[in-house]
């Protein structure tokens, strides 16, 4: 019994020590985030590229925000990002210690999605990140005699496109593009994650899919492009602030969809389908990742975060770390540009919204 008493006294001493570690030190105004921890909620799984970016950028934000707060990553995948979004929207404290980083669901907001209990305009936008663009690739045995380019897809009798679902921007944009070219294709949805899709393309279960440019370069090129199993067919570019489609600097030799379209049809793409693709790119493939806080986030916290964002993401140290970690440098977009992109889906013409709704409904039934 004596031992237990001694043990209890020791525990109490440790507890008291823990409460006493932070005694008042000075009364001078200190930076808002000094001594604080920022928890960055990421709506993706721990193995995702988005989480890697969150860690990478978080390290540099920690160094650049005044007071050098500790930044920790909390993965909260599920509900097609909604779990994390709803958490930050409804439950995160307003003091700037819990914020969100990662992709959004602009298509869900545009055409409706169960469980979306918020509007993106409710959030406090802190900054955005332009991550790598998308590249579509296809197996060379899709066509008898070998697929040589994206334009050859129109000659293939039956192209099987793999993806997660017709409700995701990357799959939807590719499907509309295939329709525009007149490719005879069918979607096989259900591949949850790029890894599973890559496996299905590698073993020949499906013939075509897409990946982010850096994942394509690091995981598809060495495993499938190098030995001639697949070729890249076209890239889906992002849109700059002036509304121009810009090809990825990571993929200079891969044609854009417009180039492939011109090769096949002999003219520039146009029409409602093309408008739909451009709008998907505008609000979905541009500044894909964002930092945002809960509605009504503390003004001092907002100011401190926004102030540090561009310096952190343009520093030489960040660029070097980014090259080492993800083999490219994700570009920053300040909170004004991020806010602009966030509200871009509101400016989508009604006829495009109707087209997208009908298209998704039609392909969801198939």
């Amino acid at each position, binding site marked *: 019994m004596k031992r*237990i*008493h001694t043990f*209890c006294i020791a*525990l*109490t001493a440790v*507890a008291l020590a*823990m*409460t006493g*570690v*932070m*005694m*008042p030190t000075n009364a001078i105004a200190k930076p808002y985030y000094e001594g604080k921890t920022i*928890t960055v909620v990421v709506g993706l*799984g*721990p*193995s995702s*590229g988005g989480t890697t970016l969150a*860690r*990478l950028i978080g390290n540099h934000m920690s160094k650049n925000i005044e007071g050098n707060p500790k930044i920790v*990553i*909390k*993965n*909260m*995948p*599920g*509900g*097609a990002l*909604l*779990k994390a979004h*709803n*958490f930050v929207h409804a*439950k995160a404290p307003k003091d700037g210690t819990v914020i969100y980083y990662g992709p959004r669901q602009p298509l869900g907001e545009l055409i409706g*999605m*169960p*469980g979306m*209990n918020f509007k993106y305009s409710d959030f406090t936008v802190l900054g955005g990140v332009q991550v790598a663009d998308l590249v579509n690739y296809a197996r060379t045995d899709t066509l008898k005699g070998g697929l040589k380019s994206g334009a050859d897809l129109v000659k293939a009798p039956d192209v099987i496109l793999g993806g997660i*679902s017709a409700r995701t921007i990357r799959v939807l944009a590719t499907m509309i593009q295939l329709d525009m070219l007149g490719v005879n294709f*069918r979607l*096989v*949805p*259900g591949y*949850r994650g790029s*890894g*599973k899709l890559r*496996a*299905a393309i*590698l*073993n*020949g*279960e*499906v013939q075509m899919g897409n990946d982010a440019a850096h994942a394509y370069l*690091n*995981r*598809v090129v*060495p*495993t499938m492009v*190098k*030995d001639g199993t697949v070729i890249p067919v076209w890239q889906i570019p992002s849109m700059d602030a002036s509304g121009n489609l810009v090809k990825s600097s990571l993929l200079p030799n891969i044609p854009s969809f417009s180039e492939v379209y011109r090769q096949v049809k002999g003219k520039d793409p146009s029409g409602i389908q093309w408008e739909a693709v451009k709008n998907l790119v505008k609000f979905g493939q541009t500044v894909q990742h964002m930092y945002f806080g809960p509605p009504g986030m503390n003004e001092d916290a907002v100011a401190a975060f926004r102030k540090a964002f561009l310096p952190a993401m343009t520093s030489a140290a960040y660029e070097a*770390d980014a090259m*080492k970690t993800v083999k490219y440098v994700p570009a920053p977009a300040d909170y004004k540009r991020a806010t602009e992109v966030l509200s871009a889906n509101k400016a989508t013409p009604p006829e495009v919204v109707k087209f997208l709704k009908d298209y998704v409904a039609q392909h969801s039934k198939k």
Partner: protein
Amino acid sequence: MLDALLTGLDLVFEWPSIGFLMLGVVLGIWIGAVPGLGGIIGLVLLLPFTFGMEPIPAMALLLGLWTVTTTSDTISSVMLGIPGTAASQATILDGYPLAQQGQAGRAFGAAFTVSAFGGVFGAIILAVSLPIIAPLILAFRSPELFMLGMLGLTMVGTLSGSSVLKGLIAAMFGLMLGFVGMAETIAMPRFHFDSVYLLDELPIIPVVLGLFALPELLELAVRNVSISRIPKHQAEGGGIMDGIRDAFKYWWLVLRCSVIGAYIGMLPGLGASIVDWVAYGHAVQSTKDNPRFGHGDIRGVIAPEAANNAIKGGALVPTVAFGIPGSLGTAILLGALVVQGIRPGPDMLTDNLHITFSLVWMIVVANVAVSILLLFLANQVAKVAFVPGHLIVPGVIATVFMGAWLGGASIGDWITCLSMGVIGYTMKRGGWPRPPLILALILGNILENTFQISMRVAQGWGWLSRPIVLIILAIIVLTLVFAVSGIVKKKQQQAKEGEQKDQSDEGEGNSKNPLISLPFGIVLAIIFIWAGIEAQPWPEEVKQFPVTIAIPAAILTLAAIFYDTRNILAERLLTNSWGEVFQQSAEKAVLGRSLIFFGYLIALILVTFVIGQKLALALFIGVYLWRWGGYSARISIGYAIGGWIFIVAFYDRIMNLLFHPSWLHSWIIPSLPEWMPTYLF
């Protein structure tokens, strides 16, 4: 190849790689042993530290941790009946009964020894199989994975418990639970009751912890017993050395299960979930002499533990050679490899084979090291089996609830955990085996997903004629035939001997209490019928699986209800009144105290809303020990303070968890002086 093999070994033993490997091993022992943590959490915690490291030391640290968690989680499987990971479910079937018989040391001795063997044999098999690995992996498309999943379900449904009928129904219930959330191919939520939490599938960890841990802890609490039901001085044999001898005695079984583990491990997407069941099933089917599976047969520990360590090497191959991670753990490792500049691809089996071998060597060395370390520790750990249950219950409850919280940081996870605790208790006392439910929950989405992809790709049923599909189908049929013939033989033998030999309540799914089983069966029948009706308006692809499961499940459940009713009527004939039947049933299930125990847990959740988790869990520990355990105020307060320090230090300070924003946090904490560290609350 030999050159690459030796160069790979050199890389592992270079300093500081070997140091980081050992650090990973030590951390992995801790992470694997605490319920609810596990390899994934460990990898996520360590990953950021590896970004600035050299490639080989970084991978040594990660692989050291990842490899050993399936060995150290044997501790909770054997001592508490909690499967640490999907790959150690089968271990509890015989490991926990052994601990209850005072033979935890023997289970540890056998498990840790075969874990080392499994890891080493798995790596050797891997090395000699390199030339055939690529065609093998590429041959497994969605149809083959679907059939493999079906094989896993057949194994678990027929092997756990004494009733195949209840095993199959439990599996179907697990499948139905797996359908909660978004459908696989169309973004349409199912059975979500307008709750955002249920838009996603039910999280596995809270379900596993609730289903297995809470009923076992309840048992310790309400019966006021130790894990071992036999006092230490009566527990003869059952030491570490006995277990090591068992491992050598059954070397042929160890070897076979290692081969099973290594090859199934290579199959991306499914291997880890079913490997222990395939190995366990193999052990059951191939054992002729005096089997006591489900009641503490050491071969029931040896088979899954050998297989689940052999799987790690196998799982690494598709990850590095094709960039195809088979699980979340290998996906994180793949990310780490890419960050380190090691690009996956066929080069890893040719030009960079030495790097692949160095990774495999890391797994081998980690497996051997953890086994030696744990064999030294096992005697001390096994002593916990004789500690009064009341001292174990509150601390483990705290780690169980924190483990449930880790994945989603949602109070919904606690509610899931508690609800599954109630279901787990009912299943355990009613003789419904729980492992089929868990495996089906894990496999449900995979089965639906692979089935629908198979149908879409083949545009019909053509995939059924694929050769490997047909081979697996034949194995499924054989498994069912063996299971049914085994039961028939057993019953014939019992009839011949004129006695009921197997009346023991020990072991998973063997309890016989029809008055507890019957209401559970009725609830299940209602759920199945309701689910079938609810699914009717949904599109074909969304309702296909739920309806296909709901109809036969409802019919089978009605059959189970019939048998339970018949058994109740038989009991009534043996007693004087219905009142006596009810009283005996309630006493057997310790119903009254069980309800109070669940009342404590409900109170824990409600109090959390007010004062937050850190204080609520500490309060629970103190109140439990004082009020329920009858310990003095000093001990209760000391234990509670210890629990609070552990939660704050480990879960808040080290793991940086987001805690529930309680009323105390929202209103009181902001008004505290600035020097007061708010993380304490």
